[in-house]
């Protein structure tokens, strides 16, 4: 991150901390905030582990077809020879073998490993884009409310209150159901439609949180000297908003985006669990969990998608915490 303007950047760079960081044999060097944050992050092993897991998950999601090609079977393929036709549960209890790393589903014998891997695609895709949507709406609304104040602030703040007070899950269920009917009008079908819908529903109703944080930050930033300075030099609203204030908001935005992603992973899982998410046979973690509740006597069916959600959420949370510690100089360590 570069400081917004030289005039304002100067005072930030010369923090005593950066001097302390650079203490040593070398000559004292100026470091940007970004460099400092990166150094701190590098020292945080827990956050780095989280980041590693996240990168791993993204690789898994992106290369799902390749991975499944090597280690599994097509995710929607029935393997009914793996199923005991009397109890409809996998032969031998789970069906776990070198051929089926996570075993097979009851009833139709689909490869659980492949389904968990493909499930990562849907979960991460929806979580990322829903978060992006929340962040874009939240930041725009928050920055406008905070900077302009007055009646603009009042209206936007009340709007945020409304969204924060909304029974999102119930409303999302209704909305997905209603919008799902308009496939012909919307000109999109099947999974694409459902994914877009979920991104919209999850993203659109979660911007209130981030909006509030951004508004608060903007309120304090707009009174800072560097803003006054640039205003006195003749800068106008848009310039100040996007060149002066926004860059200083990158830290909170990044932090809350990272922490919002796991929330959205869970939200998507909840919707899929309730049956308003992606349509079968496409694999999603929440959908698998929902199916698994019928088969509590076959615990591996619930274990693997459950663990996938757990690990994803944990990794994002750990990384988000670490990122916050690194980016926020005032946070106690």
């Amino acid at each position, binding site marked *: 991150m570069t400081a917004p303007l030289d005039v304002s950047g100067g005072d930030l760079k010369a923090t005593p901390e950066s001097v302390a960081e650079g203490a040593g044999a070398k000559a004292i060097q100026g470091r940007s905030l970004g460099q400092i944050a990166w150094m701190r992050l590098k020292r945080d092993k827990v956050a780095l582990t989280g980041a590693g897991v996240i990168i791993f998950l993204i690789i898994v999601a992106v290369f799902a077809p390749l991975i499944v090609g090597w280690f599994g079977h097509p995710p929607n393929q029935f393997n009914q020879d793996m199923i005991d036709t*009397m109890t*409809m549960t996998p032969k031998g209890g789970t069906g776990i073998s070198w051929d089926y790393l996570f075993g097979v589903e009851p*009833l139709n014998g689909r490869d659980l490993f492949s389904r968990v891997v493909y499930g990562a695609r849907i979960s991460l895709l929806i979580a990322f884009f829903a978060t992006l949507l929340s962040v874009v709406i939240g930041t725009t609304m928050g920055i406008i409310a905070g900077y302009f104040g007055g009646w603009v602030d009042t209206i936007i703040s009340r709007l945020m209150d409304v969204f924060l007070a909304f029974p999102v899950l119930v409303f999302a269920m209704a909305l997905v159901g209603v919008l799902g009917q308009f496939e012909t009008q919307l000109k999109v079908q099947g999974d694409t439609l459902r994914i877009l819908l979920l991104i919209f529903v999850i993203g659109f109703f979660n911007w209130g949180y981030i909006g509030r944080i951004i508004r608060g930050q903007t309120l304090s930033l707009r009174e800072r000297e560097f803003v006054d300075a640039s205003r006195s030099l003749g800068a106008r609203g848009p310039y100040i908003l996007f060149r002066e204030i926004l860059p200083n908001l990158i830290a909170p935005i990044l932090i809350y985006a990272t922490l919002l992603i796991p929330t959205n992973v869970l939200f998507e899982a909840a919707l899929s669990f309730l049956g308003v998410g992606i349509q*079968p046979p496409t694999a999603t973690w929440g959908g698998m969990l929902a199916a698994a509740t019928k088969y509590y*006597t076959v615990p591996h069916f619930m274990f693997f998608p459950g663990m996938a959600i757990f690990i994803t959420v944990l990794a994002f949370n750990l990384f988000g915490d670490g990122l916050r510690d690194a980016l926020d100089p005032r946070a106690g360590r």
Partner: protein
Amino acid sequence: MKKKALVVSAAGAVLALALSACGGGGTETPAAEGGGTSAPAAAGAAGFNAGLENVTNPSDKKGGTLKMAVTEDWDSVDPGDTYYGMSWNLLRIYGRPLVTYNPAPGAKGRELVPDLAESLGQMSDEGKTWTYKLRAGLKFEDGSPITSKDVKYAVLRQLDKKTFVNGPTYFNDWLDLPKDFESVYTTPDVNTDSAIETPDDSTIVFHLNKPYAGFDNFAALPATVPVPQAKDTGIKYRDHVIASGPYKFETVEAGKTYTLVRNEQWDQATDPVRKALPDKYEISLGVEGNDLDNRIIAGDLHVDIAGSGVQPAALGTIQTTPELKERADNPVAARTWYISILGDVPPLDNIECRKAVILASDRVGLQNAYGGQLAGDIATSLMPPSIGGWKKLDLFPTASGDEAKAKEALTACGQPNGFETTMTFRADRPKEVAAAESMQQALAKVGIKLTLKGFPTSEYFTAYAGKPAYTKANGIGLATNGWGADWNDGFGFLSQIIDSRTIREAGNYNLSIKDPAVDALVDQAFAEQDTAARDAIWGQADQKVMEGAYVLPAVYAKGLLIRGKGVTNQFITGAFDMYDYLALGVQ
């Protein structure tokens, strides 16, 4: 004419025969311990499927509390407003129709026996007039006498389908009602003697608009359970149904619990059908499915009212545990799960393409989707085997799909490389989800690409699959479907689902069968007076449907039910294909 099955299946319950370890104290049977596979008791049968043809754990001991439960609420306890098989079975403990089903195991349970009436109906006017005489000494729970006018009122009130949205419309369709009669609530003064006459307090005469030789089947409907006009509160009557049977409601908490206690005004002398053994019934609603199964297995509950089978988890447990398998029954229900093949949208308007769908489908895979061998036998036609006139058809192979033949059919249809279509299913029914997935897998092998679309059960027929405007606009080619008999003959099973003239704007159950030849057979069957000849015609209609490839039958439904611990006289009645709820007692 649909008898809805609860989606969430559950188990029935009954006795743990001779060696039940739960007896506790008193009279212990010195039965051999260990494994539970020891010699069954002499009185009554025991073991797997013992309840299909025998009364298990027979006893005349009175007293005790029978605990029943169900995973969800059913439509209503008002006899005029209910369309669930389990409800029709259960309501006979507090309501008495004119005639009812003999409480006996197996096929004997399908026989009709007089209940309120002294005998079965007297037919005259070539089947257009039916007369019943009521027994003497009948009383409601408040002590007032039950007269033929109460029966007439009960039948007339439930014709009002705006107030009572559930339940069949047989009386609406067949009674010779005056034109200006709308409802007992809006047109109370209209003379309805042309439909139902009550010449005296113990005689009731029904007049039909066309002959029907099987009218006793109508008289066995819950609609004939008497309702005193003075106590009728319309839709609120369900909060306090006035009992005519041996039990009356003590507490009614809709969606939670019902308790029923003895109705002191009921006289055993007037009722040769019921034994009325327990002192009390406790009915819990909304019990989670797996919890319900486990509590019946443990003996904490006696009967799962739904009677459609245990949850998948218990299915495995019961089969792998000999003691539990001994307590289980696996009856075939008069219900078929099938897939409608909608010929409205090309290329499925071509019979060869419809045949290709049937030929390519994996019939074993479908059976597995519906729960495997214990949940259903692979179906060869729409009509299930327990219906008179059924014959085994052999029009299509029933193995795992015949790709070669399917390809031939596709070529004959002019779509050698397959085609694309959409399949709907009820998203909240895991079995239908699995069936749709199975179809998608199987059809893909011959190039038929299925897009799957799930909808909630509550709107499935009213807004989606059962609404021709929707299915045509969205190119729906296949739709999961299922049907259970209202009573076990061709009329009770087929008439609503194969007759193209029943198709309305929305809310259809017949999604795909529009064949004049089938309609003609339906008319023939209605007119035929002889039972055997009539059954044969229904059998022909069933065959015609399959020849037209309008449906892909999946399975004749079965359920794995488990008998409760310490329950006496538990057996499967052929009338409802679940445990009979009239004879049950508690040890």
